[in-house]
């Protein structure tokens, strides 16, 4: 029988995973992985949060728990506590019973379900021409998520100013003013990936004002709450501000990083609706979308998060664990900048401590990145993005010296 797939072309590998694969295959003793966005301890190892270990033990020993299907929209106590984390316990929107949620497979899954819903029901029915704006640059999977949901017009909005190594606010606001009405904007709630550059509160206010006036749709991507500053409240400021402004909006939440639950795929699509009636209808349609995608979500990770968030002592322990991670990142930022300055590496390096979260956009160009990878066995994205978590007190000197070499030797 002739193969029906003889014409299937070989697809290019997903860059960030290929990077890790190459790192794994590298035998060099001083190799450093500054690629994929996962937290590492100062020993360079993955960290299962102590509170997670504790809660998983509770789950394994709880004979009342089984492996039955969750409801289509997920574990109720997960959904509500996750939305509370984003919006705040005292959120007026929650009190007004116009906040709902869909448990999804990680932040990716939450974006996917939100995108599918928007394509079907936003700005008309099945309006695949509604522009979807993602930041320039953005997490590389944003484009694919919205395109695969059927949107034909996924475009960049100005965000990163490479020259001044900061936010291009005027460009951003300009795109907000000139875009077609009802365009969808994917906003990074905090710790922008990959630049680590967030708008200030004043800047967020300006962004919100334009979006409200021009009737643009707000879709937050919140993958690093708690991880950016160490404070859950501080990192949720932008999301909560927009809610207080009265937007009907979506917020895709990931618990991969702040709970270290990467491979359990724990995410939540928080929906802020105009009122309870809208919310009810929205959720009923979300169910239909979920049913043909994965039927119902996985239970393990959601249980861990729900138990933690809903038990005061565990919640407190989790907040401490999150702060531990955020503090180590802040320390590495401070040290990297100090070392580059001490080495007299050309250029300014303030952006390393001004940027926030897991990632830093170093400003290294692609040739310099290639040098780092090939000559120094330091693996980072072609964009110059580094994962600060890959730095440790043991490798930071080697990395700083290598950056120095790359910048001075390679133009």
């Amino acid at each position: 029988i002739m193969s029906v797939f003889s014409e299937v072309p070989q697809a290019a590998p997903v860059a960030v995973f290929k990077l890790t694969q190459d790192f794994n295959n590298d035998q060099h003793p001083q190799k450093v992985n500054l690629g994929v966005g996962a937290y590492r301890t100062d020993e360079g190892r993955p960290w299962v949060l102590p509170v997670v270990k504790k809660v998983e033990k509770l789950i394994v020993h709880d004979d009342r728990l089984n492996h039955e299907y969750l409801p289509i929209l997920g574990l109720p106590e997960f959904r509500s506590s996750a939305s509370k984390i984003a919006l705040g316990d005292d959120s007026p929107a929650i009190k007004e019973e116009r906040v709902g949620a869909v448990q999804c497979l990680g932040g990716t899954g939450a974006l996917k379900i939100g995108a599918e819903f928007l394509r079907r029901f936003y700005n008309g029915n099945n309006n695949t021409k509604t522009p979807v704006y993602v930041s320039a640059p953005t997490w590389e999977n944003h484009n694919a998520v919205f395109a695969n949901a059927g949107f034909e017009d996924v475009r960049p909005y100005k965000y990163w100013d490479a020259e001044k190594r900061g936010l291009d606010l005027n460009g951003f606001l300009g795109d907000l003013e000139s875009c077609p009405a009802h365009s969808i904007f994917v906003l990074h709630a905090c710790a922008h990936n990959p630049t680590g550059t967030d708008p200030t509160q004043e800047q967020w206010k300006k962004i919100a004002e334009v979006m409200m006036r021009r009737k643009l749709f707000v879709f937050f991507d919140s993958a690093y709450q708690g991880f950016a500053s160490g404070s859950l409240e501080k990192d949720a400021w932008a999301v909560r501000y927009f809610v207080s402004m009265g937007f009907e909006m979506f917020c895709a939440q990931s618990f991969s990083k702040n709970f270290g639950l990467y491979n359990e795929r724990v995410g939540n699509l928080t929906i802020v609706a105009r009122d309870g009636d809208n919310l009810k209808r929205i959720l009923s349609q979300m169910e239909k979308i979920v049913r043909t995608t994965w039927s119902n979500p996985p239970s393990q990770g959601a249980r861990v998060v729900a138990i933690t968030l809903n038990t005061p002592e565990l919640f407190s322990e989790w907040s401490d664990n999150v702060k531990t991670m955020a503090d180590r990142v802040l320390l590495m930022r401070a040290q990297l900048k100090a070392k580059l300055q001490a080495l007299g590496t050309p250029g300014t390096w303030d952006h390393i401590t001004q940027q926030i979260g897991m990632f830093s956009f170093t400003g290294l160009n692609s040739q310099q990145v290639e040098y780092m990878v090939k000559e120094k066995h330091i693996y980072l994205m072609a964009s110059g993005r580094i994962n600060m978590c890959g730095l440790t007190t043991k490798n930071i000197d080697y990395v700083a010296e290598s950056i120095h070499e790359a910048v001075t030797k390679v133009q």
Partner: protein
Amino acid sequence: TSLSHSRRVLNKGEILWKCCAISWWGGVQMGPPDPILGVTEAFKRDTNPKKMNLGVGAYRDDQGKPYVLNCVRKAEAVIAEKKLDKEYLPIGGLGEFAKACAQLALGADNEVLKSGRNITVQTISGTGSLRIGANFLSRFHGGPRDVYLPKPSWGNHTPIFRDAGMQLKAYRYYDPSTCGFDFKGALEDISKIPEQSVIVLHACAHNPTGVDPRPEQWKEISDLVKKRNLLVFFDMAYQGFASGDIDRDAWAVRHFIEQGHNIVLSQSFAKNMGLYGERVGGFTVVCKDAEEAKRVESQLKILIRPIYSNPPMNGARIATTILNTPELRAMWLEEVHGMANRIIKMREQLVAGLKKEGSSHNWQHVIDQIGMFCFTGLKPEQVERLTKEFSVYMTKDGRISMAGVSSGNVGYLAHGIHAVTK
């Protein structure tokens, strides 16, 4: 003005919001409740102590309780000891899981596995597997966009394929006059399917009817499908659960491969390992050779990444530990056999119960059908009465999940069915 004395000044945002009180979602209709999962939700609301949930296909023990397999508990303990990290799995999932999953379906010494010409990826249980498969076909299958489902099929098949951009057609399958397999009708319809169309086959324990072709019938179907040059999409959600024997239940899949069909295959571990909520499944494409398998794999990853990036670890770890640890695997085979046997026993008891009630109908099909589900032959009005008057919950098509029947309630069920059919 007098207004400024009695009202506080609204900020600009509030003014704008209050002026735009129209919602984006005013036109969104209330979606209908999912017919299958919706049954459980209605069941939960019922306060009748005799209520029975014969809706969703989740196994129950003879006390009517969810059953966590012993091999699963043991595997969980083993895994807990290992103190594994929680790093992202690859896009295609846990490699060892994919390998064990394919071996289970195809048999460890299958030529396909030896030549490396299959690609198997971990998926979000059976639904996720079907969806990835449907998306893959939609993007890469050069043949007609038509997917042929047996009539009837699992309710979710249709929207899954449709959402993936395929079109649905059907071939005759269930014969309501015999409550059995319409072999003649199936062959007639299949013989007319345009070449290169996709045909979905339930590997065993057909859902919702419980009616499976016999091996000789499978052989004829295979020959005809080969003649029509159709792309076979096997859905195997009940391996082990149908007859109690994993190899016997995989016979059709293996026969087709042996006959030269390069199939695509969805597997679920929800039922046979009781891992429902952990979402464990696999999707396999049998390719021409290993090189083609690599190309197909790369494209599957491109499809998966924008949906959920990579799959969940927990269930796949459990399944892999069971499949690859000899004592746990042996334990599992026994437990799956036990579950299948209890269902077979319930079928026999239900028929005996109906006879005892004095039913004059022929209920032989209840025993002839196989797997979790039984197509009772009840009509929608009868189903409605059974639900309203006896609090017995099932889907409108007359399908009952035998797993929800126990020695404690089989008599009550027989009584109710007799009452609405006499």
